C-alpha cells in the first residue's frame, strides 16, 4: 500500500525555510537553462522559418553562404530561362537576382558597430518572400538611392529611422520605410534595388539568385539541372535547406547551456540531497512507526522519492516562471558564417517548458534516491528507539 501524497506535501510545509531554499536553488538552474535555451531556440527558429519550401537559392560553388558568393550575369541569363520556374501574374519567371553588401554601422548608443546585410533585390524579390510587409513609410523606388530597413535593425542601429540618410558606396542613401518579416532572417536586413546596389559597388555580378519552382518535382529537376550544367559554376539548394544549415550559429549558446545545466544541476542535486537526508534523519521515528503499522520498505522508498521529485518540480515550475518574462525580448549577435548581425527573439516554447520540467524532475530523482534508500533500509526497532 502506498503512503498518501498528503503526507509528503505536509512535510514539505513543516520545514518551510529549508524547502524554500532548496526549491529556489533548483529553480535557478532551471531558469538559467530556460534563458539560454530560449536564446538558442529563438536563433534556430529565425533560420528555420526563413526558407520557403518551394524556393531555390543559387550561389557560387563552395561559397557556402550568400555573402561570399558571386553569380555572373551570364549565369543569370542561362538560369532565368530554365524550365520548371514558376511564372508570376505578369508572366515573368519568378526569379530575383540579388546582391549582398555588408555595411558596418554603429549600434544605438555605442561607438562600435556591427555588419548589417544590405540586400539588393529584383522586382520579384517581394513576391518570393510573402512574409515581408511594410509597417512604416513606403517601398524604395528602382533607380534611386533608397532603402527599407527591418524594424529589428532600426531598433538596434543608428541612422536607420525613416528619413535618415547614410553614406555608403558612392553617395547618400535614404531610408524610406520600415518592414517586418515575421521573425525570419530577413528581419536582420536592409533592402534596396539590386541594380542600384550593383552599380554603386561596381560589382561584376550578383551574389545569389532566388527562384520559385513550379512544384516539388520541378524543384528537384531544377536543382540537379543547375548543379550539372557545365557552363555554370554555381550550386543550387532548396532555400529551406540553406537556412537550416545556418542554425549552426546557435551552437555556442547550446554548448554553454549544456555546460551550465550539467554543473549547476550537480550543485543543486547535492543541495537537494542534503535537504532530503535531513528530512529522513528528522523523521526516523515516524519511518519506524510507519513500518510497524505495515507499510513496506518499497512504499517508504517511493514516498521519499516522491517527496524529492515534488520538491524539484516546484523548483522547476518556479524556474519557468522566473524565465518567462524574457520571452519575446529581441536581441542580436553575430552569425559568423555570413559575418553579419542576426537579430532574434528569446523564444520560450512548450517543448522547452516540458524539457525544463523533466530536467527538474530528473534532478529530484537523482537527489532523492540515496536518502530515500537510507530511509527504507532502516531497521524498525532501532528507528523506533531513536530520538
Amino acid at each position, binding site marked *: 500500500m502506498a503512503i498518501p501524497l498528503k503526507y509528503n506535501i505536509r512535510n514539505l510545509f513543516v520545514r518551510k*525555510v*529549508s524547502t524554500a*531554499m*532548496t526549491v*529556489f*536553488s533548483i529553480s*535557478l*538552474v532551471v*531558469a*538559467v537553462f530556460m534563458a*539560454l535555451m530560449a536564446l538558442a531556440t529563438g536563433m534556430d527558429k529565425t533560420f528555420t522559418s526563413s526558407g520557403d519550401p518551394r524556393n531555390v537559392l543559387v550561389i*557560387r560553388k*563552395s*561559397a*557556402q*553562404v550568400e*555573402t*561570399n558568393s*558571386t553569380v555572373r550575369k551570364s549565369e543569370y541569363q542561362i538560369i532565368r530561362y530554365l524550365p520548371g520556374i514558376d511564372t508570376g501574374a505578369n508572366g515573368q519567371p519568378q526569379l530575383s537576382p540579388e546582391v549582398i*553588401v*555588408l*555595411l*558596418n554601422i554603429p*549600434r544605438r548608443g*555605442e561607438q*562600435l*558597430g*556591427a*555588419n548589417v546585410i544590405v540586400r539588393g533585390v529584383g522586382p520579384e524579390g517581394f513576391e518570393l518572400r510573402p512574409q515581408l510587409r511594410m509597417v512604416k513609410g513606403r517601398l524604395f523606388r528602382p533607380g534611386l538611392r533608397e532603402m527599407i530597413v527591418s524594424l529589428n535593425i532600426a531598433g538596434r542601429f543608428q541612422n536607420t529611422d525613416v528619413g535618415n540618410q547614410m553614406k*555608403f*558606396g*558612392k553617395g547618400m542613401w535614404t531610408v524610406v520605410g520600415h518592414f517586418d518579416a515575421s521573425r525570419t532572417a530577413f528581419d536582420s536586413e536592409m533592402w534596396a534595388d539590386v541594380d542600384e546596389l550593383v552599380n554603386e*559597388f*561596381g560589382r561584376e555580378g550578383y551574389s545569389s539568385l532566388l527562384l520559385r519552382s513550379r512544384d516539388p518535382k520541378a524543384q528537384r529537376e531544377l536543382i540537379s539541372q543547375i548543379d550539372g550544367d557545365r557552363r555554370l*559554376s554555381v550550386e543550387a539548394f532548396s532555400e529551406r535547406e540553406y537556412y537550416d544549415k545556418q542554425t549552426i550559429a546557435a551552437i*555556442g549558446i547550446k554548448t554553454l547551456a549544456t*555546460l*551550465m545545466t550539467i*554543473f*549547476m544541476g*550537480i*550543485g*543543486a542535486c*547535492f*543541495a537537494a*540531497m*542534503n*535537504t532530503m*537526508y*535531513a528530512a529522513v534523519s*528528522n523523521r526516523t521515528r515516524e519511518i519506524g512507526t510507519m513500518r510497524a503499522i505495515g507499510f513496506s520498505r518499497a512504499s517508504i522508498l517511493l514516498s521519499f522519492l516522491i517527496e524529492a521529485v515534488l520538491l524539484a518540480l516546484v523548483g522547476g515550475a518556479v524556474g519557468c516562471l522566473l524565465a518567462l518574462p524574457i520571452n519575446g525580448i529581441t*536581441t*542580436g*549577435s*553575430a552569425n559568423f558564417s555570413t*559575418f553579419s*548581425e542576426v537579430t532574434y527573439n528569446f523564444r520560450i516554447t512548450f517543448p522547452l517548458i516540458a524539457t525544463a520540467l523533466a530536467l527538474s524532475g530528473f534532478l529530484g530523482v537523482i537527489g532523492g534516491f540515496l536518502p530515500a534508500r537510507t530511509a527504507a533500509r532502516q531497521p524498525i526497532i532501532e528507528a523506533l528507539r531513536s*530520538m
Partner: protein
Amino acid sequence: MKYFRIIWKNCMRNKRRTILTILSVGFSLFLVTFLRTLMVEFSRTNETPTAVRRIAVHRSTSLQEDMPEAYRKRIETVQDVEQVVGMDWFGGIYKEPKNFFANFAVEHEDFFDVFPEVRLDTAVKQAFFAQRSAAFCGVKLAERFGWKVGDKVTLLGTIYPADLEFILVGFYTSAVDERTFYFRRDYMQEALGKPGKVGVFFVLARSLETTPRVIERIDSMFRNTDAETLSETERAFQAGFQTMMGNVQGLVLSIMSVVVFMILLVVGNAMAMSIRERSHEIAIMKSLGFQNESLIGILLSESLLISLMGGIVGCFGAIVLFRTIDMTRLSQGFLQQFQVEPLTLALGFCVALGVGIISGGLPAVHVVRLTVSDGLRRVG
C-alpha cells in the same frame, strides 16, 4: 585559534552533509571560474610593443569590400608611417568547413617587419621567399592536423573563387597565437587573374604617440574617393569583432551572479540545518559561560571553512582541468588560450569568503540570540 578543534569536530559531525556542501560549492565555483575565464578570453588583446603601434586600414563600408592595391604606395608616403603590409582574409576551407582556422594571404617581403611576434627560422623564411606556393603555419595548427614540412595542403576558396594548393615550408612560434596559416599574396593574385584588390593594410606607425595622427592622415587622404577607408588601431579593430558578437559580457555576468546566488542558498541551507539541530547544545554552551561573540565566531568559522574548501575544489579543479584538457581542440579553435588568471582565482575565493560569512552569519546570530531556556526547550 584555540577553538579549532571544536570547529573541526562540528564540521565532521555530519560528514555526508559537509562533503555534499563542499562539492556543491565546488561545482558552482568551477562555473564562476569558467565563466570569468571565458570573459577574459573574449576581451584578450595583443599588447606587445609592436602590436600597439599597428593600424588596420580597411574599407569604411565593411571588411567585405576591398581597396585598390595602389593605396599601398600612397599610404607609404604618409608621415610617421614606418612599414605597410597588405593582407587578405582568404577564408579557405581545409577539406571540411568544421576544420576552421584563420588563413591569410600576405605580402611576404614586409609581413615579418610588421608582425615581428611571428617568429620563423631564417632558413624557413628563405624557403618562403623562394617559392610562390610556399606557406607556413603555427606549430599548434600543424599539431592539430599532423602536418609536416613538405606536406601539400589545399584550401578551398569560399570568398575567392579559387582553390589553392600550398607546400608547407615550416612552422612559426609566437607568444600570442600559434594557430594561423599564412601564404603569399602574389600566388593568390596570380590564381585569381590579378584583380589588384587588397582587403586590409596593416600599417606600422613610428611610435604609439603618432598613431592617432597617422590614422587621421590616411583616412583624410582617401575621403570622397570610391573606396573610402576606415583606419583604426589593431586593438580597436579586434574590439570591433568582439562587439559583433553582441552583449556577451552582459550575458556571462548575469549567469555568474545567478550561480553565486545559488551557492549562497546551498551553503545557507546546509548551515541553517546544522545550526538548528544544534540549538540545544549551543544553549548549554551559553549556560557554561561562552560569550555570544565566541559562539558566533565558532559557527562562522565552520561555514567559512566549508565554503573555502569548496573554493579550493572548484577553483583549483578548474585550473587543473583547463591545463590537462585541450580546450582549443574541444572548441574547434574558438578558444585559444583559456588559462585561469590570478585575478579570476582571487574572485573565486572572494565569492567563497562572502558566501561563508553570509550563510553562516545569519543563522548563527539567530540562534545565539535565543535565551538559554528557549534554546534548551528546542527539540530536533
